[in-house]
Structures are given as structure tokens and as C-alpha cells.
């Protein structure tokens, strides 16, 4: 099955990003394909490489980047939402990029399932 994911909240402050990540991992483990993770609202802040959590905590941006690299999917941040929140190409973690909402429309249409995570 092909799965598109929409993530609407930023890292750490809300569990949405953690649940989305655990869901994506489990889907991949069960043999499904994650097509893309699209970030909207405060969700765009999931991909700033500047985040630097305590050493004994998860690094949410690095974790998405690594999962995407291993399994061939991109983490896409909405351009309008990113501009409002200070996310631009200079701060993007590897494997992420900024794109328009047209891309989200494609993701919603071309996948067997489309799962939202928010708060």
C-alpha cells in the first residue's frame, strides 16, 4: 500500500510528530511504502536542522531525515506556511524540501491512504 502523511504540528511541543513517525516506521515494517510526509501549519518546523535537543532526547528533524533517506521518501514543507515561520532552504535538514500545496494535492490523490496527524 502507498501512504501519504500530512503533519500539522511542530516537533516536541505536540506529540503529533512522534505519533506520525512511529506510524511511518510501523507501516514500512509491515511492507508498505511511505510516499511522502507533507508538513503544514506549525508542522513545517519539523525540518529545521538547527534544532539541538538534549543528548538523551530524540532529534526529530534528524530522525525524519534518516527514515526518509533509508526508505526513499521526501519530507515536504509548504512554502507559504514555511515563510511565515522562518523556515527556508538554508535551515532544511537533508532529505527535506519546500514546495507548494499543489504537491499535497498530488500526494492526496495518488496514494491508497492519506493519514493526517495534528493537534
Amino acid at each position, binding site marked *: *500500500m502507498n501512504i501519504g502523511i500530512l503533519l500539522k504540528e511542530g516537533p516536541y511541543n505536540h506529540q503529533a510528530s512522534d*505519533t506520525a513517525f*512511529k506510524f511511518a516506521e*510501523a507501516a514500512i515494517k509491515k511492507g*508498505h511504502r511511505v510516499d511522502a510526509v507533507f508538513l503544514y501549519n506549525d508542522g513545517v518546523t519539523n525540518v529545521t536542522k538547527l534544532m539541538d535537543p538534549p543528548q538523551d532526547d530524540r532529534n526529530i528533524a534528524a530522525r525524519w531525515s534518516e527514515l526518509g533517506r533509508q526508505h526513499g521518501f521526501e519530507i515536504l514543507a509548504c512554502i507559504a506556511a514555511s515563510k511565515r515561520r522562518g523556515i527556508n532552504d538554508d535551515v532544511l535538514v537533508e532529505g527535506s524540501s519546500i514546495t507548494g500545496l499543489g504537491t499535497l494535492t498530488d500526494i492526496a490523490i495518488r496514494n491508497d*491512504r492519506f*493519514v493526517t496527524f495534528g*493537534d
Partner: protein
Amino acid sequence: MLHTINKSPFETSTMETCLRFLQPGDPVLFIEDGVYAVQASNRFSPMIEALQKINPVFALQPDLSARGIDSVADGVGTIDYEGFVGLVEEHQVNTWF
């Protein structure tokens, strides 16, 4: 259609709203702070026990464990993230937050 709910029913109207639109037979999965709804012997237990006669009701075990909830209302199934994926294999998803 799978309905997920991630908000505590004590603090927001999300669960109540979701249940108003739910169709008979459609599964409901409580995740994150939503799992407090299915904790045994709280104010919502009668509502959850009535609900599970018409709709399959699940709660995410990792979220129950994280919150120290070791006993859930009668008839509630507990699943892990792979179980969540299993429900998504069978249903389109309606995420309530």
C-alpha cells in the same frame, strides 16, 4: 472509515463531536491524550461501554503505557503501532484532533 481521536474528553469536545458523526460499525482508535477516554472507572466509562456495542473501539497501547493506564473500559481492544497500520490497511482515515 477509521476515526482517530487524540484529545482528552475531559478537556475538549473533540470526542463528543466525533461520536456525533460516526457511522455504525466504523472503528474508533484513541491515541495520545485521547486514551484517557478509555481508562476504566472514570466519568466516560459508561459512554465507552455503550459505544463499543455499535463500533469497534481501540486504544494505542504505547500511549496507555506512557500514561500509566493499566486498566481500560470493557470491550476496548489495545493495539500497537502495527495494529494502527492494520486498521489503516482496511479503512480510509478520519483524524479528529
